[in-house]
Protein backbone atom coordinates (compact mmCIF):
# COMPACT_ATOMS: atom_id res chain seq x y z
CA UNK A 1 0.00 0.00 0.00
CA UNK A 2 1.13 3.54 -0.71
CA UNK A 3 -0.03 6.32 1.57
CA UNK A 4 -1.29 9.24 -0.49
CA UNK A 5 -2.39 12.58 0.92
CA UNK A 6 -5.05 14.43 -1.05
CA UNK A 7 -5.48 18.04 0.03
CA UNK A 8 -8.70 19.75 -1.02
CA UNK A 9 -8.66 23.37 -2.12
CA UNK A 10 -10.05 24.43 1.27
CA UNK A 11 -7.24 22.60 3.05
CA UNK A 12 -9.12 19.46 4.09
CA UNK A 13 -6.70 16.52 4.05
CA UNK A 14 -7.51 12.94 3.15
CA UNK A 15 -4.81 10.35 3.81
CA UNK A 16 -5.60 7.19 1.88
CA UNK A 17 -3.84 3.83 1.55
CA UNK A 18 -3.88 3.13 -2.17
CA UNK A 19 -3.16 -0.26 -3.66
CA UNK A 20 -0.24 -0.28 -6.10
CA UNK A 21 -1.52 -0.70 -9.65
CA UNK A 22 -4.42 1.69 -9.16
CA UNK A 23 -4.05 5.26 -10.34
CA UNK A 24 -3.91 8.30 -8.06
CA UNK A 25 -7.37 9.19 -9.46
CA UNK A 26 -8.82 5.77 -8.56
CA UNK A 27 -7.42 6.05 -5.05
CA UNK A 28 -9.42 9.24 -4.60
CA UNK A 29 -12.63 8.20 -6.33
CA UNK A 30 -12.89 4.80 -4.68
CA UNK A 31 -12.60 6.53 -1.30
CA UNK A 32 -15.00 9.37 -2.16
CA UNK A 33 -12.43 12.15 -1.84
CA UNK A 34 -14.32 15.28 -2.94
CA UNK A 35 -12.87 17.33 -5.78
CA UNK A 36 -11.79 14.62 -8.19
CA UNK A 37 -14.66 13.96 -10.54
CA UNK A 38 -12.99 11.76 -13.14
CA UNK A 39 -15.96 11.85 -15.50
CA UNK A 40 -14.30 9.56 -18.03
CA UNK A 41 -13.11 6.97 -15.54
CA UNK A 42 -9.46 7.27 -16.51
CA UNK A 43 -9.55 7.44 -20.30
CA UNK A 44 -7.61 10.72 -20.34
CA UNK A 45 -10.62 12.26 -22.06
CA UNK A 46 -11.92 14.90 -19.69
CA UNK A 47 -9.32 16.59 -17.43
CA UNK A 48 -11.64 16.42 -14.39
CA UNK A 49 -9.03 14.66 -12.24
CA UNK A 50 -6.55 17.54 -12.30
CA UNK A 51 -4.14 17.67 -9.33
CA UNK A 52 -1.02 19.57 -8.34
CA UNK A 53 1.82 17.23 -7.45
CA UNK A 54 3.99 18.38 -4.55
CA UNK A 55 7.34 19.45 -6.02
CA UNK A 56 9.29 16.86 -4.06
CA UNK A 57 7.37 14.12 -5.88
CA UNK A 58 7.37 15.47 -9.42
CA UNK A 59 10.28 13.36 -10.64
CA UNK A 60 8.77 10.17 -9.21
CA UNK A 61 5.37 10.53 -10.84
CA UNK A 62 6.76 10.09 -14.34
CA UNK A 63 6.35 12.03 -17.57
CA UNK A 64 3.19 13.31 -19.16
CA UNK A 65 2.07 11.72 -22.41
CA UNK A 66 1.36 14.00 -25.37
CA UNK A 67 -2.35 13.40 -24.82
CA UNK A 68 -2.20 14.39 -21.16
CA UNK A 69 -0.06 17.40 -22.01
CA UNK A 70 -2.51 18.68 -24.54
CA UNK A 71 -5.55 18.08 -22.30
CA UNK A 72 -3.85 20.00 -19.49
CA UNK A 73 -2.91 22.77 -21.87
CA UNK A 74 -6.58 23.77 -21.92
CA UNK A 75 -7.62 22.92 -18.37
CA UNK A 76 -8.24 25.78 -15.94
CA UNK A 77 -5.76 26.96 -13.28
CA UNK A 78 -2.91 24.91 -14.72
CA UNK A 79 0.50 25.15 -13.03
CA UNK A 80 3.86 23.62 -13.93
CA UNK A 81 3.15 20.82 -11.41
CA UNK A 82 -0.30 20.04 -12.81
CA UNK A 83 -1.08 16.43 -13.68
CA UNK A 84 -4.10 14.36 -14.59
CA UNK A 85 -4.25 11.94 -11.67
CA UNK A 86 -5.68 9.15 -13.85
CA UNK A 87 -2.33 9.06 -15.62
CA UNK A 88 -0.24 8.49 -12.47
CA UNK A 89 0.04 4.80 -11.56
CA UNK A 90 0.56 4.13 -7.89
CA UNK A 91 3.57 2.06 -6.86
CA UNK A 92 5.53 1.63 -3.64
CA UNK A 93 7.84 4.44 -4.72
CA UNK A 94 4.88 6.83 -4.40
CA UNK A 95 4.37 5.97 -0.72
CA UNK A 96 3.98 9.37 0.94
CA UNK A 97 2.86 11.24 -2.19
CA UNK A 98 1.08 14.53 -1.60
CA UNK A 99 -1.28 16.03 -4.18
CA UNK A 100 -3.38 19.18 -3.95
CA UNK A 101 -6.71 19.67 -5.69
CA UNK A 102 -7.70 22.72 -7.70
CA UNK A 103 -10.67 24.90 -6.75
CA UNK A 104 -12.78 23.32 -9.47
CA UNK A 105 -12.37 20.77 -12.23
CA UNK A 106 -13.91 22.90 -14.97
Amino acid at each position, binding site marked *: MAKITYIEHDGAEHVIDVKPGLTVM*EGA*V*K*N*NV*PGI*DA*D*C*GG*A*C*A*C*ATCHVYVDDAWLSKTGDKSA*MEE*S*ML*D*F*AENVEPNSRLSCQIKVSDTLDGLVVRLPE*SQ*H
Partner: protein
Amino acid sequence: MSAVESGDLNARVVIVGAGHAGGSAAAFLRQYGHTGPITLIGDEPLLPYQRPPLSKGWLKGEADAESLSLKPAEWYEEAKVSLRLGGVVTRINRADQTVTLASGEILPYGYLILATGARARMLPIPGADLAGVLALRTAADAELLKTALGEGKHLAVVGGGYVGLEAAASARALGAHATIIEREERVLARVACHALSSFFQDYHGARGVGFELNAGVEAFEGENGHVTGVKFADGRVLACDAVLVGVGALPNDELAKDAGLECVNGVVVDLEARTSDPKIFAIGDVSHRPLSLYERQFRLESVPNALEQAKQAAAAIVGRAGPAPEVPWFWSDQYDLKLQIAGLPFDADQILVRGDVAAARFAVFHLKGDLIQAVEAVNAPPEFMAGKQLIAKRTPVSVTKLADATISMKDVAA
Protein backbone atom coordinates in the same frame (compact mmCIF):
# COMPACT_ATOMS: atom_id res chain seq x y z
CA MET B 1 -39.08 27.72 4.91
CA SER B 2 -39.99 24.24 3.82
CA ALA B 3 -37.59 21.33 3.92
CA VAL B 4 -37.47 21.42 0.15
CA GLU B 5 -36.01 24.91 0.09
CA SER B 6 -33.71 24.71 3.08
CA GLY B 7 -32.39 21.23 2.50
CA ASP B 8 -32.57 18.37 4.90
CA LEU B 9 -29.37 16.60 5.90
CA ASN B 10 -31.31 13.98 7.83
CA ALA B 11 -33.88 13.07 5.21
CA ARG B 12 -34.30 9.40 4.38
CA VAL B 13 -33.19 9.02 0.76
CA VAL B 14 -34.07 6.03 -1.38
CA ILE B 15 -32.28 5.67 -4.71
CA VAL B 16 -33.80 3.32 -7.28
CA GLY B 17 -31.14 2.16 -9.73
CA ALA B 18 -27.55 1.41 -8.76
CA GLY B 19 -25.75 2.38 -11.94
CA HIS B 20 -23.34 5.24 -12.44
CA ALA B 21 -26.02 7.84 -11.67
CA GLY B 22 -27.51 6.14 -8.61
CA GLY B 23 -24.16 5.13 -7.14
CA SER B 24 -22.77 8.63 -7.65
CA ALA B 25 -25.82 10.26 -6.07
CA ALA B 26 -25.20 8.30 -2.87
CA ALA B 27 -21.52 9.32 -2.94
CA PHE B 28 -22.25 13.02 -3.55
CA LEU B 29 -24.88 13.07 -0.78
CA ARG B 30 -22.22 11.89 1.66
CA GLN B 31 -19.63 14.31 0.23
CA TYR B 32 -22.13 17.12 0.79
CA GLY B 33 -22.60 16.16 4.42
CA HIS B 34 -25.89 14.30 4.21
CA THR B 35 -26.26 12.26 7.40
CA GLY B 36 -29.67 10.65 6.95
CA PRO B 37 -30.19 7.05 5.87
CA ILE B 38 -29.53 6.25 2.20
CA THR B 39 -30.80 3.08 0.57
CA LEU B 40 -29.52 2.18 -2.89
CA ILE B 41 -31.60 -0.38 -4.75
CA GLY B 42 -30.30 -2.01 -7.93
CA ASP B 43 -31.68 -4.92 -9.93
CA GLU B 44 -28.20 -6.15 -10.93
CA PRO B 45 -26.24 -8.27 -8.46
CA LEU B 46 -23.21 -5.96 -8.67
CA LEU B 47 -22.01 -2.88 -6.85
CA PRO B 48 -22.42 0.28 -8.95
CA TYR B 49 -19.90 0.12 -11.78
CA GLN B 50 -18.74 1.99 -14.85
CA ARG B 51 -20.41 0.87 -18.06
CA PRO B 52 -18.29 2.60 -20.73
CA PRO B 53 -15.40 0.09 -20.48
CA LEU B 54 -17.78 -2.82 -21.17
CA SER B 55 -17.48 -2.37 -24.93
CA LYS B 56 -13.76 -1.61 -24.72
CA GLY B 57 -11.32 -2.64 -21.98
CA TRP B 58 -13.64 -5.25 -20.46
CA LEU B 59 -14.11 -7.15 -23.73
CA LYS B 60 -10.36 -7.10 -24.27
CA GLY B 61 -9.70 -8.40 -20.76
CA GLU B 62 -8.07 -5.17 -19.59
CA ALA B 63 -10.65 -4.47 -16.87
CA ASP B 64 -12.22 -6.61 -14.16
CA ALA B 65 -15.17 -6.27 -11.80
CA GLU B 66 -13.00 -4.64 -9.14
CA SER B 67 -11.55 -2.02 -11.45
CA LEU B 68 -15.00 -1.24 -12.87
CA SER B 69 -16.62 -0.71 -9.45
CA LEU B 70 -17.22 2.94 -8.61
CA LYS B 71 -16.43 2.21 -4.95
CA PRO B 72 -15.33 -0.90 -3.08
CA ALA B 73 -17.87 -2.78 -0.94
CA GLU B 74 -16.29 -1.44 2.28
CA TRP B 75 -17.06 2.11 1.24
CA TYR B 76 -20.82 1.50 1.33
CA GLU B 77 -20.49 0.03 4.83
CA GLU B 78 -18.37 2.89 6.11
CA ALA B 79 -20.57 5.51 4.47
CA LYS B 80 -23.68 3.77 5.82
CA VAL B 81 -25.24 3.42 2.39
CA SER B 82 -27.55 0.46 2.59
CA LEU B 83 -27.33 -1.62 -0.58
CA ARG B 84 -30.21 -3.68 -1.93
CA LEU B 85 -28.55 -5.44 -4.84
CA GLY B 86 -30.82 -7.70 -6.85
CA GLY B 87 -33.73 -5.64 -5.54
CA VAL B 88 -36.61 -4.61 -7.80
CA VAL B 89 -38.96 -1.74 -7.06
CA THR B 90 -42.42 -2.43 -8.41
CA ARG B 91 -44.29 0.66 -7.31
CA ILE B 92 -43.92 4.21 -6.07
CA ASN B 93 -46.62 5.21 -3.60
CA ARG B 94 -46.42 9.00 -3.74
CA ALA B 95 -49.24 9.68 -1.31
CA ASP B 96 -47.48 7.97 1.59
CA GLN B 97 -43.92 8.47 0.26
CA THR B 98 -42.96 4.82 0.05
CA VAL B 99 -41.74 2.37 -2.58
CA THR B 100 -42.81 -1.26 -2.79
CA LEU B 101 -40.25 -3.92 -3.66
CA ALA B 102 -40.95 -7.14 -5.55
CA SER B 103 -40.35 -8.94 -2.25
CA GLY B 104 -43.34 -7.10 -0.81
CA GLU B 105 -41.18 -4.97 1.44
CA ILE B 106 -42.20 -1.32 1.71
CA LEU B 107 -39.55 1.38 2.19
CA PRO B 108 -40.40 4.93 3.24
CA TYR B 109 -38.59 7.89 1.71
CA GLY B 110 -38.17 11.57 2.42
CA TYR B 111 -36.69 11.96 -1.03
CA LEU B 112 -36.69 9.45 -3.86
CA ILE B 113 -34.12 9.47 -6.64
CA LEU B 114 -34.99 7.54 -9.79
CA ALA B 115 -31.85 6.37 -11.57
CA THR B 116 -33.33 3.45 -13.43
CA GLY B 117 -31.36 4.03 -16.62
CA ALA B 118 -32.23 2.78 -20.05
CA ARG B 119 -32.47 -0.64 -21.63
CA ALA B 120 -31.32 -1.81 -25.03
CA ARG B 121 -33.93 -1.59 -27.74
CA MET B 122 -34.34 -5.07 -29.22
CA LEU B 123 -35.56 -5.97 -32.68
CA PRO B 124 -39.04 -7.49 -32.90
CA ILE B 125 -38.06 -9.98 -35.59
CA PRO B 126 -38.02 -13.78 -35.80
CA GLY B 127 -35.04 -15.29 -33.99
CA ALA B 128 -34.51 -12.34 -31.65
CA ASP B 129 -34.77 -14.71 -28.69
CA LEU B 130 -32.07 -17.12 -29.94
CA ALA B 131 -29.05 -17.64 -27.70
CA GLY B 132 -26.17 -15.57 -29.03
CA VAL B 133 -28.36 -12.60 -29.94
CA LEU B 134 -26.97 -10.12 -27.46
CA ALA B 135 -27.28 -6.57 -26.25
CA LEU B 136 -24.63 -4.58 -24.42
CA ARG B 137 -25.83 -2.62 -21.41
CA THR B 138 -24.72 -4.63 -18.38
CA ALA B 139 -21.69 -6.52 -17.17
CA ALA B 140 -23.68 -9.74 -17.64
CA ASP B 141 -24.29 -8.77 -21.29
CA ALA B 142 -20.60 -8.02 -21.71
CA GLU B 143 -19.62 -11.37 -20.23
CA LEU B 144 -21.84 -13.19 -22.74
CA LEU B 145 -20.38 -11.16 -25.58
CA LYS B 146 -16.83 -11.80 -24.40
CA THR B 147 -17.35 -15.57 -24.46
CA ALA B 148 -18.74 -15.28 -27.98
CA LEU B 149 -15.64 -13.49 -29.24
CA GLY B 150 -12.30 -15.05 -29.99
CA GLU B 151 -9.90 -15.98 -32.75
CA GLY B 152 -11.81 -16.77 -35.94
CA LYS B 153 -15.30 -16.17 -34.52
CA HIS B 154 -17.67 -13.92 -36.45
CA LEU B 155 -19.62 -11.18 -34.75
CA ALA B 156 -22.49 -9.52 -36.59
CA VAL B 157 -23.26 -6.08 -35.20
CA VAL B 158 -26.73 -4.77 -35.96
CA GLY B 159 -26.61 -0.99 -35.71
CA GLY B 160 -23.71 1.27 -36.65
CA GLY B 161 -23.73 3.46 -33.55
CA TYR B 162 -20.93 4.02 -31.05
CA VAL B 163 -21.56 0.83 -29.08
CA GLY B 164 -21.48 -1.23 -32.27
CA LEU B 165 -18.31 0.43 -33.54
CA GLU B 166 -16.55 0.01 -30.21
CA ALA B 167 -17.55 -3.64 -29.98
CA ALA B 168 -16.39 -4.25 -33.56
CA ALA B 169 -13.00 -2.69 -32.74
CA SER B 170 -12.71 -4.87 -29.63
CA ALA B 171 -13.73 -7.96 -31.63
CA ARG B 172 -10.96 -7.27 -34.14
CA ALA B 173 -8.46 -6.83 -31.31
CA LEU B 174 -9.43 -10.32 -30.12
CA GLY B 175 -8.94 -11.82 -33.58
CA ALA B 176 -12.63 -12.16 -34.35
CA HIS B 177 -14.31 -11.07 -37.58
CA ALA B 178 -16.89 -8.34 -37.37
CA THR B 179 -19.55 -7.12 -39.76
CA ILE B 180 -21.53 -3.98 -39.05
CA ILE B 181 -25.07 -4.00 -40.39
CA GLU B 182 -26.77 -0.63 -40.73
CA ARG B 183 -30.21 0.25 -41.99
CA GLU B 184 -29.07 3.73 -43.07
CA GLU B 185 -26.56 4.49 -45.82
CA ARG B 186 -23.80 5.25 -43.33
CA VAL B 187 -22.69 4.40 -39.80
CA LEU B 188 -23.36 6.93 -37.01
CA ALA B 189 -26.17 8.26 -39.19
CA ARG B 190 -28.24 9.47 -36.25
CA VAL B 191 -25.42 11.02 -34.26
CA ALA B 192 -22.66 12.32 -36.53
CA CYS B 193 -22.11 14.23 -39.75
CA HIS B 194 -21.10 12.64 -43.06
CA ALA B 195 -17.42 13.50 -42.66
CA LEU B 196 -17.15 11.66 -39.35
CA SER B 197 -19.24 8.72 -40.56
CA SER B 198 -17.09 8.12 -43.59
CA PHE B 199 -13.90 8.53 -41.56
CA PHE B 200 -14.96 5.84 -39.05
CA GLN B 201 -16.21 3.57 -41.80
CA ASP B 202 -12.89 3.78 -43.64
CA TYR B 203 -10.88 3.31 -40.45
CA HIS B 204 -12.82 0.20 -39.48
CA GLY B 205 -12.81 -1.08 -43.05
CA ALA B 206 -9.02 -0.80 -43.21
CA ARG B 207 -8.86 -2.94 -40.06
CA GLY B 208 -10.93 -5.73 -41.50
CA VAL B 209 -14.44 -4.83 -40.38
CA GLY B 210 -17.08 -5.61 -42.98
CA PHE B 211 -20.09 -3.41 -43.68
CA GLU B 212 -23.62 -4.05 -44.85
CA LEU B 213 -25.20 -0.63 -45.35
CA ASN B 214 -28.77 0.17 -46.40
CA ALA B 215 -29.41 -3.31 -45.08
CA GLY B 216 -32.70 -4.37 -43.57
CA VAL B 217 -32.53 -7.30 -41.17
CA GLU B 218 -35.47 -9.64 -41.53
CA ALA B 219 -34.65 -12.43 -39.11
CA PHE B 220 -31.94 -14.17 -37.13
CA GLU B 221 -31.44 -17.78 -38.14
CA GLY B 222 -30.42 -20.48 -35.73
CA GLU B 223 -29.73 -24.10 -35.02
CA ASN B 224 -30.47 -25.87 -31.74
CA GLY B 225 -31.58 -22.60 -30.25
CA HIS B 226 -28.36 -20.71 -31.05
CA VAL B 227 -27.96 -18.01 -33.67
CA THR B 228 -26.09 -18.99 -36.83
CA GLY B 229 -26.82 -16.13 -39.18
CA VAL B 230 -28.48 -12.84 -40.01
CA LYS B 231 -31.05 -12.91 -42.80
CA PHE B 232 -31.36 -9.70 -44.81
CA ALA B 233 -34.49 -8.35 -46.47
CA ASP B 234 -33.01 -9.26 -49.88
CA GLY B 235 -32.79 -12.89 -48.83
CA ARG B 236 -29.03 -13.14 -48.30
CA VAL B 237 -27.76 -14.71 -45.08
CA LEU B 238 -24.62 -13.63 -43.24
CA ALA B 239 -23.21 -16.51 -41.19
CA CYS B 240 -22.10 -15.56 -37.69
CA ASP B 241 -21.40 -16.96 -34.24
CA ALA B 242 -23.06 -14.13 -32.34
CA VAL B 243 -25.09 -11.00 -32.95
CA LEU B 244 -24.79 -7.75 -31.04
CA VAL B 245 -27.89 -5.62 -31.35
CA GLY B 246 -26.96 -1.98 -30.82
CA VAL B 247 -29.90 0.02 -32.09
CA GLY B 248 -30.41 2.46 -29.28
CA ALA B 249 -31.94 2.42 -25.85
CA LEU B 250 -35.28 3.11 -24.21
CA PRO B 251 -35.69 4.86 -20.87
CA ASN B 252 -36.83 2.72 -17.95
CA ASP B 253 -39.53 5.22 -17.01
CA GLU B 254 -42.43 2.83 -16.34
CA LEU B 255 -42.30 3.23 -12.55
CA ALA B 256 -42.49 6.99 -12.96
CA LYS B 257 -45.31 6.79 -15.50
CA ASP B 258 -47.30 4.44 -13.28
CA ALA B 259 -46.86 6.90 -10.43
CA GLY B 260 -48.25 9.70 -12.59
CA LEU B 261 -45.00 11.66 -12.95
CA GLU B 262 -44.69 13.68 -16.14
CA CYS B 263 -42.80 11.64 -18.75
CA VAL B 264 -41.81 12.45 -22.34
CA ASN B 265 -39.23 9.98 -23.61
CA GLY B 266 -37.99 9.71 -20.03
CA VAL B 267 -38.91 11.40 -16.78
CA VAL B 268 -39.21 15.15 -17.20
CA VAL B 269 -37.00 17.04 -14.72
CA ASP B 270 -35.85 20.60 -14.08
CA LEU B 271 -32.33 21.94 -13.63
CA GLU B 272 -32.24 20.48 -10.12
CA ALA B 273 -33.16 17.07 -11.57
CA ARG B 274 -36.50 17.35 -9.80
CA THR B 275 -39.55 15.67 -11.36
CA SER B 276 -43.10 16.97 -11.30
CA ASP B 277 -43.22 15.69 -7.68
CA PRO B 278 -40.91 17.86 -5.53
CA LYS B 279 -39.93 14.86 -3.38
CA ILE B 280 -38.80 12.82 -6.39
CA PHE B 281 -35.73 13.34 -8.56
CA ALA B 282 -34.75 11.55 -11.76
CA ILE B 283 -31.15 11.41 -12.96
CA GLY B 284 -29.07 9.85 -15.72
CA ASP B 285 -30.27 8.01 -18.82
CA VAL B 286 -33.88 7.86 -17.62
CA SER B 287 -34.34 11.60 -17.35
CA HIS B 288 -35.54 14.10 -19.91
CA ARG B 289 -33.70 17.21 -18.84
CA PRO B 290 -33.43 20.86 -19.74
CA LEU B 291 -30.39 21.90 -21.77
CA SER B 292 -30.15 25.62 -21.12
CA LEU B 293 -27.48 26.12 -23.76
CA TYR B 294 -29.77 24.79 -26.44
CA GLU B 295 -33.09 25.98 -25.02
CA ARG B 296 -34.75 22.60 -25.09
CA GLN B 297 -35.36 19.37 -23.16
CA PHE B 298 -33.43 16.26 -24.14
CA ARG B 299 -32.58 12.80 -22.91
CA LEU B 300 -28.82 12.25 -22.70
CA GLU B 301 -27.11 8.91 -22.30
CA SER B 302 -23.69 9.63 -20.91
CA VAL B 303 -21.62 9.35 -17.76
CA PRO B 304 -20.93 13.11 -17.51
CA ASN B 305 -24.69 13.69 -17.63
CA ALA B 306 -25.28 11.05 -14.94
CA LEU B 307 -22.68 12.71 -12.70
CA GLU B 308 -23.95 16.23 -13.30
CA GLN B 309 -27.51 15.27 -12.43
CA ALA B 310 -26.39 13.19 -9.45
CA LYS B 311 -24.74 16.38 -8.13
CA GLN B 312 -27.85 18.44 -8.90
CA ALA B 313 -30.14 16.09 -6.98
CA ALA B 314 -27.74 15.67 -4.05
CA ALA B 315 -27.23 19.44 -3.82
CA ALA B 316 -30.97 20.11 -3.92
CA ILE B 317 -31.61 17.57 -1.18
CA VAL B 318 -28.98 18.95 1.21
CA GLY B 319 -29.80 22.54 0.28
CA ARG B 320 -26.54 23.69 -1.20
CA ALA B 321 -25.92 25.48 -4.48
CA GLY B 322 -26.08 23.21 -7.49
CA PRO B 323 -23.05 22.44 -9.66
CA ALA B 324 -21.99 24.76 -12.48
CA PRO B 325 -23.90 23.87 -15.65
CA GLU B 326 -21.94 21.62 -17.97
CA VAL B 327 -21.67 21.31 -21.71
CA PRO B 328 -22.88 17.80 -22.58
CA TRP B 329 -19.93 15.70 -23.65
CA PHE B 330 -19.14 12.17 -24.76
CA TRP B 331 -16.15 10.08 -25.65
CA SER B 332 -15.38 6.89 -27.52
CA ASP B 333 -12.20 4.85 -27.87
CA GLN B 334 -11.73 2.67 -30.95
CA TYR B 335 -8.37 1.19 -31.96
CA ASP B 336 -5.91 4.06 -31.43
CA LEU B 337 -8.60 6.69 -31.93
CA LYS B 338 -9.83 8.92 -29.17
CA LEU B 339 -13.08 10.59 -30.12
CA GLN B 340 -14.21 13.40 -27.84
CA ILE B 341 -17.48 15.20 -28.47
CA ALA B 342 -18.63 18.38 -26.78
CA GLY B 343 -22.05 19.91 -27.24
CA LEU B 344 -24.95 18.83 -29.42
CA PRO B 345 -25.31 19.87 -33.06
CA PHE B 346 -28.78 21.43 -32.63
CA ASP B 347 -29.67 24.23 -35.05
CA ALA B 348 -26.25 24.13 -36.75
CA ASP B 349 -26.12 25.80 -40.15
CA GLN B 350 -22.51 25.07 -41.05
CA ILE B 351 -20.13 22.15 -40.66
CA LEU B 352 -16.43 22.88 -40.66
CA VAL B 353 -13.62 20.33 -40.67
CA ARG B 354 -10.38 21.48 -39.08
CA GLY B 355 -7.18 19.45 -39.30
CA ASP B 356 -6.06 16.42 -41.24
CA VAL B 357 -8.65 13.69 -41.72
CA ALA B 358 -6.18 11.40 -43.53
CA ALA B 359 -3.79 11.62 -40.57
CA ALA B 360 -6.66 10.79 -38.16
CA ARG B 361 -6.17 14.06 -36.32
CA PHE B 362 -9.04 16.45 -36.94
CA ALA B 363 -12.17 17.98 -35.56
CA VAL B 364 -15.60 18.65 -36.98
CA PHE B 365 -17.23 21.86 -35.76
CA HIS B 366 -20.97 22.39 -35.96
CA LEU B 367 -21.64 26.12 -36.14
CA LYS B 368 -24.71 28.27 -35.81
CA GLY B 369 -23.55 31.52 -37.33
CA ASP B 370 -20.35 32.29 -35.44
CA LEU B 371 -21.26 30.18 -32.40
CA ILE B 372 -19.96 26.66 -31.91
CA GLN B 373 -22.84 24.29 -31.10
CA ALA B 374 -20.80 21.09 -31.04
CA VAL B 375 -17.36 19.73 -31.80
CA GLU B 376 -16.38 16.15 -32.63
CA ALA B 377 -12.63 15.76 -32.14
CA VAL B 378 -10.63 12.76 -33.30
CA ASN B 379 -7.22 12.57 -31.60
CA ALA B 380 -7.51 16.34 -31.21
CA PRO B 381 -7.73 17.28 -27.50
CA PRO B 382 -7.05 21.02 -28.05
CA GLU B 383 -10.04 21.29 -30.37
CA PHE B 384 -12.20 19.38 -27.88
CA MET B 385 -11.08 21.30 -24.80
CA ALA B 386 -11.15 24.75 -26.39
CA GLY B 387 -14.35 23.94 -28.27
CA LYS B 388 -16.05 22.86 -25.04
CA GLN B 389 -15.08 26.12 -23.35
CA LEU B 390 -16.25 28.21 -26.30
CA ILE B 391 -19.57 26.39 -26.31
CA ALA B 392 -20.00 26.95 -22.57
CA LYS B 393 -19.29 30.67 -22.81
CA ARG B 394 -21.26 31.19 -26.02
CA THR B 395 -18.22 33.02 -27.37
CA PRO B 396 -18.47 33.94 -31.06
CA VAL B 397 -15.50 32.69 -33.09
CA SER B 398 -13.89 33.75 -36.32
CA VAL B 399 -14.88 30.98 -38.70
CA THR B 400 -11.89 31.79 -40.92
CA LYS B 401 -9.45 31.34 -38.05
CA LEU B 402 -11.17 28.18 -36.87
CA ALA B 403 -10.86 26.65 -40.34
CA ASP B 404 -7.11 27.30 -40.39
CA ALA B 405 -5.39 24.51 -38.46
CA THR B 406 -2.12 26.46 -38.45
CA ILE B 407 -3.76 28.92 -36.05
CA SER B 408 -3.72 27.34 -32.58
CA MET B 409 -6.96 26.82 -30.70
CA LYS B 410 -5.64 29.22 -28.06
CA ASP B 411 -5.51 31.95 -30.69
CA VAL B 412 -8.89 30.97 -32.08
CA ALA B 413 -10.34 31.23 -28.58
CA ALA B 414 -8.55 34.46 -27.72
